[in-house]
């Protein structure tokens, strides 16, 4: 067999980098398809999962719909002809990216994927089809509804972002800093959370930079996004702490000069980070101009639809994070200025829970019930109980005010109290020495008993040690503990 050249030898680098490339491309295709919400996403998943598994092992349990799809793709023929399976017809620019397979998932496919568990994400509409509904979830939704809508369909609740020409009048220096801020912020997000195929963020104009912070921009750049609701400036009943508005977050993203930076923020404060540029700029400005620059940045931040949910700790601790990831998606804050609603209402939220009834009947009622059960008339029972309760009331003031003498305690404790408060030495009859003697006597007694225990334990230990080796001393031990060891021998 070996004469036939049964083994092919390939340099490891070539073989493994080939496998890695294949896996990487398959993964990226899968992620792209997921974002696209293709109607046959389930079928495509089946095919791609089969190919990914094949890199590592031979797929064993292949779902029927996958083998059908592979047949439709002429799997055997392709493998025969090209020596390996490829998706020659795959074109991700097309609506239906793989024409040979079914263009829609049927119930079997969705069942196999456990789709019920997965809420289907709604598709992001193209800008021109935007619903201009003034209040899509009502004028006064409750907070839960707002949160849910933002999570599932943020573009419904959020007003469309439009570039306003007057924004172009923003202070030049503020615009430049904002552009730099945008670049550095996105650069600080781990590559893993960037959408596959998304180009690096390099806006050149203010408009481009601001667009990067719209729902659309964030959606296109981050792999998967979780939009968080923000309660700053909303009217109505908002539970919990009010968070900073986008404009007020200027101090988070553009820390004032004196503040030390920690963690992920630190590199941004060093040249050529945007924070260091900002601080240099501020250093050279007089108070009025500095305030103008800061105000320009505030304005720009308030024009953003989304911002990363960053936070800065100080030297006393606190979390340092620019981005936040929840589960498998990047969490971003949404700007409440864009919400289509008038105010937040309490409607539909759970009313405050009432205190439930106590578990037990009150003691008065219980006593009365017990008396009545005995056959006592209700009013007689009530009077009797009242009379019993008023016994204390009938006592004289003098009798009530008298202090009950303390109960006599054990001799030692009493003595200790007296000894530790020398003021009362004269009155107390027990001296400190006597107390010491008593106490130490007790301790000694304890120690003695403790030693005895130790001895017992050590004896047992040695016993077990020897029993494994079978030496002479063991035998002598056995003699002394004859009973138990006889059982062993038996």
């Amino acid at each position, binding site marked *: *067999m070996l004469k036939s050249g049964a083994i092919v030898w390939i340099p490891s680098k070539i073989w*493994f980098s080939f496998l*890695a490339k294949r896996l990487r491309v398959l993964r990226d295709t899968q*992620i792209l398809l997921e974002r696209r919400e293709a109607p046959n996403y389930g079928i495509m998943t089946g095919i791609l999962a089969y190919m990914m598994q094949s890199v*590592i092992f*031979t797929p064993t349990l292949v779902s029927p719909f996958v083998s059908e799809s592979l047949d439709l793709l002429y799997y055997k023929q392709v493998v025969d002809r090209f020596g390996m*399976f490829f998706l020659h017809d795959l074109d991700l620019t097309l609506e239906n990216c793989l024409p040979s397979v079914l263009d829609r998932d049927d119930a079997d496919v969705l069942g196999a994927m456990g789709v019920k568990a997965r809420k289907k994400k709604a598709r992001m509409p193209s800008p021109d089809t935007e619903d201009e509904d003034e209040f899509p979830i009502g004028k006064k939704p409750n907070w839960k509804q707002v949160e849910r809508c933002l999570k599932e369909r943020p573009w419904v609740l959020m007003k469309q972002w439009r570039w306003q020409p007057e924004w172009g009048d923003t202070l030049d220096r503020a615009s430049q800093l904002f552009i730099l801020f945008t670049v550095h912020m996105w650069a600080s997000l781990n590559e893993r959370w960037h959408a596959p195929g998304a180009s690096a963020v390099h806006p050149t104009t203010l408009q481009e930079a601001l667009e990067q912070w719209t729902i659309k921009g964030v959606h296109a750049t981050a792999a998967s996004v979780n939009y968080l609701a923000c309660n700053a400036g909303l009217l109505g009943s908002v539970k919990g702490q009010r968070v900073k508005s986008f404009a007020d977050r200027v101090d988070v993203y553009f820390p004032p000069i004196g503040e030390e930076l920690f963690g992920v923020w630190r590199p941004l404060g060093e040249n050529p980070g945007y924070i260091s540029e900002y601080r240099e700029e501020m250093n050279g400005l007089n108070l009025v101009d500095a305030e103008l620059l800061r105000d320009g940045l505030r304005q720009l931040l308030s024009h953003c639809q989304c911002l990363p949910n960053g936070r800065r700790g100080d030297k006393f601790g606190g979390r340092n994070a620019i981005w936040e990831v929840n589960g498998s998606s990047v969490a971003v804050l949404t700007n409440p200025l864009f919400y289509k609603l008038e105010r937040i209402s309490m409607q539909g939220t759970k009313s405050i829970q009432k205190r439930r009834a106590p578990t037990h009947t009150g003691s008065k009622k219980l006593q009365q019930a017990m008396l009545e059960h005995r056959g006592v008339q209700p009013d007689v029972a009530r009077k009797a109980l009242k009379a019993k309760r008023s016994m204390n009331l009938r006592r004289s003031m003098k009798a009530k005010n008298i202090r009950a003498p303390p109960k006599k305690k054990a001799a030692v404790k009493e003595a200790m109290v007296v000894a530790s408060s020398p003021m009362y030495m004269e009155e107390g009859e027990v001296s400190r020495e006597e107390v010491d003697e008593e106490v130490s006597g007790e301790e000694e007694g304890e120690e003695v008993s403790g030693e005895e225990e130790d001895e017992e334990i050590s004896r047992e230990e040695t016993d077990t040690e020897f029993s494994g080796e079978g030496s002479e001393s063991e035998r002598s031990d056995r003699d002394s503990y004859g009973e138990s060891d006889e059982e062993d021998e038996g």
Partner: protein
Amino acid sequence: MKGIKLFTKSNLRDSYDSLQNSIKQLLEEFPSLDWSYMNNRENGELFIDVGVSYNPGEERPLVGLWRLDSLEASHGMAGFASGNIHHINTLNFYGGLQAEMAKSRSLQNHIVFRSSYNLAYEVTRRVNNRRDLFKEKSVYELDPDFLWDIDRAIKLYENDAGEKSFGVRDEFRIGGQAWDIFCETAHESVSQQVLQQRHS
């Protein structure tokens, strides 16, 4: 016995006795094994898994892949059942083959099972040998486990694996009675031919 492979390794190129040595090593490592008792058919049949690994002798790291047509021909000649073919990475010509010996033959030649596979799989082998990576459901949902698994596989392939060599292995499960004969013939039929092939 699982996981004793490393204790019984021996190099065929060294000497004719090396296969016998591997049994000696086994018995030294596990003194509780009573070889003559195990090999006595009155006490039952002893099965030995003999794996013959072919490793590249070169300095630069290489990966060996079995050619399936050769494997099929060899298995066919030896009278194995059709078994399971494993195509590696959907490649048509390369992969592994596992098959049982036809019953009638196995009574005569004492070979029960043969498994020919590529050792490169060990890069991503799971500790428990389970093959449950990249399940459709988790791929569909792009759940974090899937993303983590695939990232790790890619990293393994890109970083460490490229620096190492992986050969191929031909594993036979034989009856204890066939062991001595196997030892006598294996050396001749394996190492010389491989060496010749590699230098030709």
